[in-house]
């Protein structure tokens, strides 16, 4: 058998070019488009996941405003103007958590292995998920804001400040996407990721200034609440929507977002690179 080898024998230290097929920008964008489309189709195929994300805030608005509203503030409308903007602020991060469950599912079902045998940039898979989740968050914002306005919430600060509030929520949510990614790659199943996210989110949400003023809380809780980034986020969104001075709440949120990103993004990326 005359077998001519394509490669020099091992050990001959061949001067092979390193991996030099760069993926061009246009190809990257095409891959990103195809993968984002796939992620959006996944959301469409599982509308309940969207419903979950919307149903919880809707129930909370109804419950808190109509059941506890009278007890919490002078009247329901005053309480709505207090609570709903803060709750809107958390929409961005609730949805960031879906990133981790989606990533986990892709690893579990072997879909990630399929992607890894394709000549695409590995970060493209991640980026496409972030884009899809952001789009989903934008839809959730639109629905929730619409719902709150139907119930009678006023956007005192006008559309630009409302957009600023949404943007701030998304920026903070984006920093939590890295945390979500880490959870998604560390835990065994998508359900575990979801459970874990809930476990972290619940105390953060209730131990914040979203539903009640920290000054009304017992001392230890007040201390926790004042340092909880979700309080700063709620305060900032509330101030923007009600056209009140934001103080240093916006800056605090941005610092938190930057700090979370600086700490968790390298960890998440390193872990992702190791697994792909």
């Amino acid at each position, binding site marked *: 058998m005359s077998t001519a080898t394509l*490669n020099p024998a091992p050990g001959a230290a061949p001067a092979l070019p390193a991996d030099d097929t760069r993926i061009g920008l246009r190809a990257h964008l095409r891959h990103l488009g195809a993968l984002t489309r796939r992620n959006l189709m996944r959301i469409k195929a599982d509308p309940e996941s969207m419903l979950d994300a919307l149903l919880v805030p809707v129930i909370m608005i109804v419950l808190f405003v109509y059941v506890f509203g009278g007890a919490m503030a002078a009247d329901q409308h005053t309480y709505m103007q207090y609570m709903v903007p803060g709750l809107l602020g958390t929409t961005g991060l609730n949805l960031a958590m879906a990133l981790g469950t989606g990533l986990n599912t892709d690893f579990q079902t072997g879909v990630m*292995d399929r992607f890894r*045998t394709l000549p695409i940039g590995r970060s493209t898979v991640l980026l496409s998920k972030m884009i899809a989740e952001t789009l989903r968050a934008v839809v959730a914002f639109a629905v929730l804001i619409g719902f709150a306005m139907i119930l009678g919430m006023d956007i005192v600060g006008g559309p630009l400040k409302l957009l600023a509030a949404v943007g701030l929520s998304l920026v903070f949510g984006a920093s939590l996407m890295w945390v979500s990614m880490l959870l998604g790659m560390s835990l065994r199943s998508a359900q575990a990721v979801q459970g874990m996210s809930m476990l972290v989110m619940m105390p953060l949400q209730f131990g914040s200034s979203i539903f009640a003023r920290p000054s009304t809380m017992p001392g230890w809780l007040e201390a926790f609440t004042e340092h909880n980034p979700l309080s700063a986020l709620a305060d900032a969104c509330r101030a923007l929507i009600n056209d009140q001075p934001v103080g240093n709440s916006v800056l605090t949120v941005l610092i938190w977002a930057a700090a979370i990103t600086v700490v968790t993004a390298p960890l998440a990326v390193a872990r992702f690179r190791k697994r792909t």
Partner: protein
Amino acid sequence: MTRIDRNAVEVHGIVKHYGETKALDGVDLAVREGTVLGLLGPNGAGKTTLVRVLSTLIKPDAGTAFVGGYDVLRQPKQLRRTIGLTGQYASVDEALSGYENLYLIGRLLDLSAKDAKARAFELLERFSLTDAAKRPAKGYSGGMRRRLDLAASMIGRPKVLYLDEPTTGLDPRTRNEVWDEVQRMVGEGSTVLLTTQYMEEAEQLADELTVIDKGRVIAGGGIQELKTQVGGQSLQVRPTRPAELPEMARSLQEAGIPATFSEESGLLSVHLTDEGQLTTVIGVLGTRGFGVAGIDTKLPSLDEVFLTITGKSSVPAQARDKEPVA
């Protein structure tokens, strides 16, 4: 058509350990361009691990491997352009329809939207999935998923195709369909590395076989080659007068040849363990004047070959494993 024999896949001393488990313990093999190599081995032999190394999914601990001339460790991106993989476990997106699964992969392989669509429909048709094309893969049966996964690995017309137990769980008709598709890919110039537990499949598709066990190559070669290598041909004699069968057998036994006969089939069979025995048999039958209507030698089946080879390797290996590690 003249073609220079070149290796599409070359593996040199690949090692992959998982803790104490030596999934791959220094594997060497080569697959010539345009041929099908059947990779056989008992459960846990390391077949899937090898396929995953060659698909850049896991990094080997030692050794080198080239696919289509690209180094698995140093040129993974170029290598990925030349391969297609159907893993042992299906890797389809359950939420998407069969069509969308294939279209997505076409786009990721840089096909134009039009080509990706056409290719997706073409493969759905070939794997009899046209009727289910628009349904989410979640609702597919096991065999349908398997076929979708196979179709997915063929979208880019890869030069090298890895099929890890591609027909496990398929009904006989779809199995034939898959075989046809694999042969078509080979006809179009692809090289295939196929792992399988079905000897019939190996016999249908493979040009050469490599048997691995406990992470090592224990046998290799053409199918006929392996069969003769393992030896144990069986000789079957059809006498002109079937009534003489018992007498024939007795004569041979007296000459030291273990012969058996079956009155039903009217055949005398001898399990040959060395070549000299064939001469002895013919000599005995001739001098005793038995009439012989037909004589035939038969190679062992591939199943027998597989059992013999892996059986041989596992006995000393188990004994070796029991010894304390120095």
